[in-house]
């Protein structure tokens, strides 16, 4: 029996794993001490729990526990990494390199740094959404202090050549930050092997609670220093003050442990479901296009454009399935997805895109249900589409003079 609506938006957020919730519960009502309280057992108990979670989080990154700084989430981690490095290293240089399809938490932070006098290079991506390591090498100048390239993209799931970029940054003596929010638990990560100096992650994308994230900050070779963005009691090695949310941290740690232990099995399963979905839809519907890289992508992500059908219109038809669209209509702006635009996907196809994000709790029954529903609705909407009709009549849509509004 399928429970509706089906949740297939796991690149947006995930259901908290019941095992995670169970681990958290005692820290609300029984073990509620402040981890910074050094004078009593409640505090020691909370501190021990935080330190255990720090180990669990470090473990999934190949880092040491001391290198994990807790934040409210990846947006804060990205802000802290970029602004923290900019503030601390501005005497050394004022140039930062990033790329066009980063999350807004990186792009908008870069925009602010530009207003504050920094220079930012936004590298373009290829049609699959990848940056080539040579682009990074060529962009580095003697003023460059930081390179920030995401590990995996949230909309299209494209993986970046992180290891090669990390190597270049090491050679050039430039710090390397990666937003790995989407990649944690889906691809093996190792900050040493990948040459990563700073890494953002968050709990709620890996079946943990919302409201807790972390920034990995390398402690040696080199020791990365950050200008704190929140001042206060000097928690988290002075880089991020504020009382630690112990229950959330415990849940974050548990989520990382589960993700690491079950990664191989889970990746195989979500990949198989993703392929079942992708093939099911694309083999039954002509003129559908997979956005992003065909192979170098997150296992559970399928971002598909359905020609002649508008994304939000389609989402209304498949409202029993929770997904996202790159259509402008889903946001306050009139522009379609800037990520798809950066890949050179035309605006028309960007408006027609749906992001499916398969996760831990999806089943093949759900996938089959979604395939049937999507095929039926796309066919219905195409029958209702003037664009589809024009193409059937042999007209070239690109040659029509549209009344732009």
């Amino acid at each position, binding site marked *: 029996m399928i429970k509706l609506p089906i949740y297939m938006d796991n690149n947006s957020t995930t259901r908290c794993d019941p095992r995670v919730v169970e681990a958290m519960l005692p820290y609300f009502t029984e073990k509620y001490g402040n981890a910074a309280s050094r004078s009593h057992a409640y505090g020691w108990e909370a501190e021990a729990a935080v330190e255990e979670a720090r180990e669990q989080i470090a473990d999934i990154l190949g880092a040491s526990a001391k290198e994990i700084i807790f934040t409210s989430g990846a947006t804060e981690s990205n802000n802290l990494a970029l602004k923290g490095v900019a503030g601390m290293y501005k005497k050394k240089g004022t140039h930062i390199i990033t790329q066009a399809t980063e999350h807004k938490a990186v792009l908008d932070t870069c925009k602010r740094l530009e207003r504050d006098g920094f220079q930012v290079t936004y590298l373009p991506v290829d049609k699959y959404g990848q940056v080539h390591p040579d682009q990074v090498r060529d962009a580095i100048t003697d003023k460059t202090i930081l390179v920030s390239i995401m590990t995996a993209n949230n909309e299209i799931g494209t993986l970046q050549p992180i290891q090669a970029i990390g190597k270049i940054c090491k050679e050039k003596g430039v710090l390397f930050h990666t937003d790995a929010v989407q990649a944690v638990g889906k691809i093996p990560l190792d900050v040493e092997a990948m040459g990563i100096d700073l890494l953002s992650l968050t709990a709620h994308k890996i079946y943990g609670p919302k409201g807790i994230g972390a920034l990995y900050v390398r402690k040696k070779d080199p020791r990365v220093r950050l200008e704190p963005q929140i001042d206060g009691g000097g928690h988290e090695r002075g880089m991020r003050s504020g009382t630690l949310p112990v229950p959330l941290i415990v849940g974050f740690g548990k989520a990382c442990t589960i993700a690491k232990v079950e990664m191989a099995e889970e990746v195989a399963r979500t990949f198989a479901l993703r392929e079942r979905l992708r093939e099911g839809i694309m083999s039954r519907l002509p003129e559908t296009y997979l956005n992003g890289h065909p192979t170098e992508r997150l296992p559970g992500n399928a971002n598909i454009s359905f020609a002649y059908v508008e994304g939000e*219109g389609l989402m209304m038809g498949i409202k029993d399935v929770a997904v996202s669209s790159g259509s402008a*209509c889903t946001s306050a702006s*009139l522009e379609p997805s800037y990520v798809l635009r950066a890949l050179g996907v035309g605006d028309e196809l960007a408006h027609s895109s749906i992001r499916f994000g398969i996760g831990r709790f999806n089943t093949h029954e759900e996938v089959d249900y979604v395939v049937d529903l999507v095929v039926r609705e796309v066919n219905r909407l195409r029958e*209702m589409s003037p664009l*589809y*009709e024009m193409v059937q009549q042999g007209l070239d849509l690109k040659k029509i003079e549209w009344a732009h509004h």
Partner: protein
Amino acid sequence: MPYSEKILEHYNNPRNVGSFDASDPNVGTGLVGAPECGDVMKLQIRVNPQTGIIEDAKFKTFGCGSAIASSSLATEWLKGKTLEEAAAIKNTEIVEELALPPVKVHCSVLAEDAIKAALKNYQEKQQAAEKASPCEPAAV
């Protein structure tokens, strides 16, 4: 964003989906919007040449649910109206009837534009037909 019952009703059971022969002299066709902008409406009216009344209307729309609902509603309203009455349909009436949220007002504007474009196309055809020789078929 929650949708009104009326939007959902039109989306799930759109009225008057389809096309007339655009070369029919009694048919007016309006095509507005652009694929890059995320919505395109094609709205057609068929006018009784004796009475000047819109006897039938059809639409096809590429767009969100609100755009589909706006054009579906427009075809319902057009039937039985004179050209003057049709020209008086305002987007604000569509907004009110469908309870469109502010971010979807542009869908109603597009529907009004489509109505006006269809009326204009019909009137242009009529004028062209009047100018043409009565022995020859009307230009389309």
